[in-house]
């Protein structure tokens, strides 16, 4: 069965510094979700391999995004527990989905394996993805910046964009954040240079594969398109009845 449009699964571990990524993602989801979307967030200990696997099967989301530590062949979940590895049984679970792994190095081998398994799109990093921990998670622009750029992909998908548009907007967000630290208001921050370097690295190692025109979350009006004449006839009929009733009362 095809993955369900407008359906999203986010795995959001919190330990081992992953809260720096997932708390930003959580806020962005809250700010950008649309009423027509079915969204499940597995947070903290719920972001474990068994629960993620079970939810992938029951929810059948078209978009699956997660933050985790990883390497060339592998990605993990909460407490760096192994979740998916090249050649294992979890890779085929990505078939028919748009998959974003905010995880180091998976673009080298795991990403291509996910695409070979039939994913609609894959977004990840070829080398180490860096972030700043000079402040508490999600408290300053400095700690949020790398993830505001990386999770722009999800923001755009939630807004109904195609994966190609989402990728373009994500790269533009990287530029926006870079400009902020190099020549914008952030340039006087003590670690502005390092923040810009981190963003520059993360942008350069970002990798994407898939069909750009895929639109995981089509607008509700598109979904109603087939029924539109009946909806209009129904609404028109109701309005006519109300006018008739009103006129009759006056007479």
């Amino acid at each position, binding site marked *: 069965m095809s993955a369900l449009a407008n359906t999203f699964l986010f795995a959001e571990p919190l330990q*081992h*510094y*992953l809260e*720096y*990524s997932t708390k930003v993602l959580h806020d962005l989801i809250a700010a950008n979700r649309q009423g027509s979307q079915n969204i499940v967030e597995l947070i903290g200990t719920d972001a474990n391999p068994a629960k993620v696997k079970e939810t992938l099967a029951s929810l059948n989301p078209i978009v699956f995004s997660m*933050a*985790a*530590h*990883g*390497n060339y062949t*592998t990605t*993990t979940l909460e407490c*760096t527990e192994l979740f998916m590895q090249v050649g294992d049984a979890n890779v085929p679970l990505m078939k028919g989905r748009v998959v974003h792994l*905010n*995880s*180091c*190095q998976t673009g080298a081998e795991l990403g291509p394996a996910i695409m070979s398994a039939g994913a609609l799109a894959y977004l990840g*990093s070829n*080398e*180490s*993805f*860096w*972030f*700043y*921990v*000079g402040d508490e998670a999600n408290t300053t622009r400095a700690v949020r910046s790398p993830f505001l750029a990386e999770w722009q992909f999800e923001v755009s998908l939630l807004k109904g964009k195609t994966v190609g548009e989402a990728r373009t907007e994500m790269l533009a967000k990287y530029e926006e954040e*870079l400009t902020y*630290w*190099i*020549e914008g208001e952030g*340039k*006087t*921050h*003590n*670690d*502005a*240079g*390092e923040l*810009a*370097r*981190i963003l*520059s*690295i993360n942008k*350069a190692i970002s990798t994407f594969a898939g069909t750009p025109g895929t639109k995981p979350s089509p607008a509700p009006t598109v979904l109603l398109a087939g029924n539109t004449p009946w909806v209009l006839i129904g609404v028109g009929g109701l309005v006519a009845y109300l006018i008739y009733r009103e006129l009759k009362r006056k007479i």
Partner: protein
Amino acid sequence: MSKDLVSRWFNKLGPAEQDLALLILNGMAYTPRQTYDEVMRGSPIGDQLQRMLEMGKFGTTYAEEQDLIKSRLNQTLSKKDPDKPLFVALSTISVQPKVFSPAQLLQEISAGTPIGQQWIKNEADYMHRILQVR
């Protein structure tokens, strides 16, 4: 690029970047501040540095560029609290995710580890970006 544009370029950069070596001319490294001063004085060196800015070139050989990159990273990271954890990578290279202080990052860069190489490789891109600020 007029003197005004060089002035605008210099003033758009952050304070830390203004005093970090960026260009090499005749074996001498110049920071944006030194470049700005030479251009404003209208010195022959200023003219040459201005041309390098216009062309977006550091004015170095590959070997000089590598030295310049390491010197820049060393200079910027050495100014920070050496032991304060500042950076994390989402990798499982070690059993536990590793947190890097400026001192640890400098060690990686100096030893030429994959982490260090990643920062060195990026620095050239980053320097181009600084040159392109307008």
